[in-house]
């Protein structure tokens, strides 16, 4: 039975281009941030979000009408969108900011996404719980707040019932997991265990080049992305001081006692 149009799901996945997780980051000499002249790739939590949208389509078939990805970033952020398209998203929106502009902060991003959602028909937002560069972990919650939508954060399992317009989400919480049921439209943020993203295949990389990628500016959405925070100084953690070697367990225990560690 074909689902009626009222029950079709439109999914939006916001993604961020971040310094690759494998790069050893270094603070720049001016101590204003880290050296960005290194390999970048899609924020790993966002990869999980894209993968989840694609898996959801595999599970729900025709009930998923569209998977749209969006990013806010400099021209190079388009690469991240192409990656998401190669993973299986249908179309992309790039809210482009000049290379020299400061990185937008969570509130700016959430406002831009909220504006975008006013224009696009979206039933479900799936996004990373945080980006590995600034580790803010706020955007999903702020977006749900601005839209006055329910939110299911730190998801480790997601089931959507398009007929009932609801979702059951398993959340990772301190001491275990929590199962909640939410109404759509909904903002879900992904935790590490939600899925394991697949590599894009070559045929899909080639197909992604032909998928639509729309460019917008913050002005098109009438949002101001000017940061509200001022970074005063960025420093590296103190260098680790090398440890000493002990000859046997007795010596180790003695050293531990000396350092003030005692068995409870």
């Amino acid at each position, binding site marked *: 039975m074909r689902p009626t149009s009222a029950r079709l799901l439109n999914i939006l996945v916001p993604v961020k281009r971040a310094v690759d997780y494998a790069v050893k980051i270094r603070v720049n000499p001016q101590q204003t941030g880290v050296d960005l002249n290194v390999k970048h*790739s899609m924020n790993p939590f966002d990869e999980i979000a894209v993968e989840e949208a694609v898996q959801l389509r595999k599970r729900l078939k025709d009930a998923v009408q569209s998977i749209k990805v969006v990013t806010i970033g400099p021209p190079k952020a388009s690469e991240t969108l*192409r990656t998401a398209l*190669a993973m299986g998203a249908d179309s992309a929106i790039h809210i482009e900011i000049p290379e020299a502009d400061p990185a937008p902060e969570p509130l700016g991003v959430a406002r831009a996404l909220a504006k975008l959602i006013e224009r696009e028909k979206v039933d479900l937002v799936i996004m990373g719980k945080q980006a590995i560069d600034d580790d803010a972990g706020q955007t999903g919650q702020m977006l749900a707040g601005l839209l006055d939508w329910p939110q299911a954060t730190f998801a480790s399992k997601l089931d959507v019932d398009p007929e009932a317009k609801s979702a059951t989400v398993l959340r990772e919480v301190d001491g275990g997991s929590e199962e909640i049921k939410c109404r759509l439209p909904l903002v879900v943020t992904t935790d590490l265990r939600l899925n394991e993203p697949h*590599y*894009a*295949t*070559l*045929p*899909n*990389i*080639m197909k992604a*080049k032909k998928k639509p990628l729309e460019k917008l500016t913050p002005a098109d959405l009438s949002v101001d992305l000017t940061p509200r925070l001022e970074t005063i100084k960025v420093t590296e953690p103190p260098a680790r001081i090398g440890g000493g070697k002990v000859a046997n367990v007795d010596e180790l225990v003695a050293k531990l006692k000396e350092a003030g560690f005692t068995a409870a």
Partner: protein
Amino acid sequence: MMDITGFTETQLDVRSAVAQVCSDFPNTYWQEHDQAQTDPKEFHAALAKAGWLGIALPEHLGGSGLGISEATMMMQTISESGAGMAGAQSVHANVYATQPLARFGNESQTETVLPKVISGEWRVCFGVTEPNAGLDTLSLKTFARKDGDVYRVTGQKIWITCAQVAKKMMLLARTTPVDQVKKPSEGLSLFCIDLDRERPGLDMRKIKKMGGRAVDANEVFFDNYEIPADSLVGEESKGFKIILHGMNAERCLLAGEALGLGYAALKRAAEYAKERVVFQRPIGMNQGISHPLADAWMKLEGAKFATYHAARLFDASKKDKSISAHSLGVACNAAKYMAAEAAFTAAERAVLTHGGMGYAAEYDVERWFRESLVPRIAPVSREMILNYISEKVLELPRSY
């Protein structure tokens, strides 16, 4: 390590996506497979699963329809990941030897074989070289005698990579005795055959070798081995022309594999030179260490330009008739030569930079050094390329 300006967006996409697949196969994987001499079948399967084996096959046959410029980048990325020549050779023939089949094979051949090769279900090897006919391909002796609706193959092939694990062989064999052909380049035919080890008349023996030990190389013996007549690819007697077309492409792929190996070794050497402290200073501070590495980098970069120039010419020559066979042949051979020499230099200096540690398998550079001899020898030796340039470019009298 390698400067990536000037590459196309597609080439860079290939580079990052292939690197991602390769990142699941760390150097310890290749060390273990080299030492135990076991086939890297998981690696082949991972590349197949992500669709890479069809990179240069036409889209209507399930491939991605990209060119040699992209396939070369793929092969370079594989060897550069640390997989080295072993990693490259585990897929090389599947990417390359399937080209003549896609182009000259009939519908039933391409439709049964190619999708299975692309999906990784079947692997392919390339059966050309013989003990007494290496570079002198026209003197091939392996004979396929027509007998009703079959051919019977008798002869010996050597240095057949992956024959132990291949389901199919692209076999070049003589179908007309050399004294009965009208032109010396005729009389050879190309076949796409099953390697059925259960059937009589087929035997193979692994060759113990210096490098790339994860991947088997073999002597293959045919003794009245029966193959159906419809395994013939293209016209009978035109086999040499059919494979000649692919030889320039193979030069490019091999050049790419060599480059990857060289960059991997050089990168490791530079890292080691930065970290290794002797006499209270990193050894890379000594120009006796840094200058040979800087020199090796420039040699690799030069070879890189030659390689991707040749690959671009190869792809463009399909449409642009102003690119002569001469220009293409010279570019592809020169690129293979330069890349092989640059890789060897980089690998040797990487071992020497490591001092005694360079001799230990744990540091990988000895493995890459052993493998760096392969592109200098195969598929055509450096001496034969020097002969070729002497004759075709410098117009000097032929020495052989």
